[in-house]
């Protein structure tokens, strides 16, 4: 396909990762936090596939990992949303700053 080399993909992935982390940091909406998590997972996944492409030793393994991550991300999203809905039912908000019932 294309012979770009690994670094551009790693850079893109790093950017996605940074966006995800900042999303976690600045979003007060729980769903926004969830989106940040999805971004981080995608960044990791992009790395996996890029390594699968640019390292013959991981041609299969990289993709397998990516697939497993995708599926687990779906599961994680389902559970997270269920929790968020529950939280919303109890607190009438999705502000993560209000989710501090267990603070010390």
């Amino acid at each position, binding site marked *: 396909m294309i012979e770009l080399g690994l670094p551009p993909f790693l850079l893109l992935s*790093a950017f996605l990762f940074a966006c995800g982390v900042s999303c976690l940091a600045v979003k007060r909406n729980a*769903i926004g936090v969830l989106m940040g998590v999805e971004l981080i997972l995608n960044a990791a996944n992009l790395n996996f596939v890029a390594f699968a492409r640019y390292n013959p030793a991981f041609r299969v393994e990289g*993709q397998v990992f990516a697939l497993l991550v995708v599926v687990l991300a779906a599961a994680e999203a389902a559970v997270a949303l269920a929790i968020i809905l529950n939280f919303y039912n109890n607190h009438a908000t999705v502000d993560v700053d209000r989710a501090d019932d267990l603070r010390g």
Partner: protein
Amino acid sequence: MSLAVALFAVVALATGASALGVVLSRNIVRAAVWLLFTLIGVALNYLLLGAEFVGAAQLIVYVGGTLVLVVFGVMLTAQGPLRSLAARPAEWAVGGVRAAALFGLLAALALGPHAPPAVTPPDGPLPGVGPLGLAFLGFPDASPAANVTGVPDGKVFPRTPVAYLLPFEVVSVHLLVVLIGAAYLARAKRRAKA
């Protein structure tokens, strides 16, 4: 500049911009739309990398499933004033600095001397759904490309066949359990309220 590089540039720019959109947009639904574009962009990246199956899986699972779920969540929880839970400027500053630092570090790692060795990939797409399925069953990648051990420092990776069937089954069961759990979580409280 070849067509491929141009394509990557366009896709990467769009992906990055959408990711930035996710961070910056105050409206959570808009953030979801930006996330949609980001995910599609990542899927396109997979296609560019030759991983068609992973790309399609990304589309069907993330775009078709996860994101719809997210939007569902938005719609079920969104209320007028809460739609934009704004963070304080200080938080923006801290988050931005932190993200920039992380990006810097990661970029330094990706480009610096510790970067993974650059390898010229063999031609052709990555192993598709067939070899992947065989890999799950423990058959090694039989394509000639898999025999290339082109790591510059001469290290040859062991090509022992590893079956991914167990992880796959574990993930499947995990998914099932999680979905049941999610359904239970999501409906238990409604009953309690009623």
